């Protein structure tokens, strides 16, 4: 069982202040909120990139945390698409064929379109099997079939998965929903 628990946490970043008291157990969680509400800030705090100003963050059964930002380019380090996959310690051949990128293995990842770069980075992140995976706007830049494949991959994953998203129609049934409003992170819906 994996869980990340935020106990009376206060996160401050620039003009933004967020409060939350939440437990994110195994499975898929989605955090929605309007533009500028603090989704990316919460993502960084969950991934350990920002230390809360108050409160505690506890991890249960979570060793490896992985964060993927909205812009795939910040994650690209490989000189070729295949080298990029290998840099995530993932075997390139089978991953690239499942992503529809087998014929681009020797290309510079910077020559891919933004949507293809996004598929590549998300595919690597999913294959890297982190206990906690935090994805900031993962559906942005993906076409509709790619969004549906991502939805299935997120549901099939072990561990705790958190997506920050505007595209809430792409969330599979069973997703635990949270919403940021007025500086507070709250559970949403039934």
């Amino acid at each position, binding site marked *: 069982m994996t869980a990340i628990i935020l106990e009376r946490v206060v996160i401050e970043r620039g003009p933004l202040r967020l409060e939350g008291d939440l437990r994110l157990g195994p499975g898929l969680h989605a955090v929605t909120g309007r*533009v500028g509400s603090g989704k990316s800030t919460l993502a960084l705090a969950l991934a350990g990139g920002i230390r809360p100003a108050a409160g505690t963050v506890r991890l249960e059964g979570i060793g490896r945390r992985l964060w993927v930002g909205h812009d795939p*380019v910040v994650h690209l380090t490989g000189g070729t698409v295949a080298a990029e996959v290998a840099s995530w310690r993932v075997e390139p051949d089978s991953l690239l064929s499942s992503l529809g990128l087998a014929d681009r293995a020797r290309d510079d990842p910077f020559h891919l379109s933004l949507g293809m770069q996004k598929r590549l980075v998300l595919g690597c992140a999913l294959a890297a099997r982190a206990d906690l995976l935090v994805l900031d706007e993962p559906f*942005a830049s993906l076409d509709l079939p790619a969004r549906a494949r991502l939805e299935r991959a997120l549901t099939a994953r072990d561990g705790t998965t958190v997506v920050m998203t505007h595209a809430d129609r792409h969330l599979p049934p069973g997703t635990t929903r949270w919403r940021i409003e007025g500086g507070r992170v709250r559970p949403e819906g039934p």
Partner: protein
Amino acid sequence: MIALSGVRARTLSIDSLAIPPGLTAVVGLNGTGKTTLLEACTGLLLPDEGTILVDGLPPREVDAGWVSASPDRSLLFSRVDDELASPGRFAGLSPIETAARATGAAERAGAVRHLSRSVRTLSGGERGVVALAAALASQPTVLALDEFDGFLDRETLDDLIPAARDSGARFVLWSTHDRELTRAADHAIALGGGGVAGTGAAALALFDAWERAA
């Protein structure tokens, strides 16, 4: 009219295409050439072959505005007010005219409350809104919005569709994966199979096929 004929650019081939004035949604799966089409129509990319004319002029002789698919790559300056003033300053306008354009653009894009902020503190979606305002401040003839709606919530997007249409730009080319935006646009162009896969209702109908494929 933006008239394309015999155009070959990267993986995209378009024998003949006419884009009327107004808001045009450009749709298609990843890697079908949406960004390439926008780049070619704004003069950022010269096609390998063929000609593109915007009301009879090559794209590089026509003022263009560009908002990137990646919100971090659209902004040059560290302050929002400097970003919005930059088109006027680069054009050598008077300070009064520069400020008037910046303020007008901020109002149309819904970016007024960000004016005194540092770009560093803006979220991804807010950067998109500011980038749209900066593009409007240059009063472009062709405004290209490259999938920037991917980072916007529904309410913000619904406000920006009329803002883009009424921006004063004669041609607004907006690449998107959003069906409602495509439906709301004046025209739609779908790319696929290395070229244009359909226009108008045929482009909109492809969303059904893509959802079935999903």
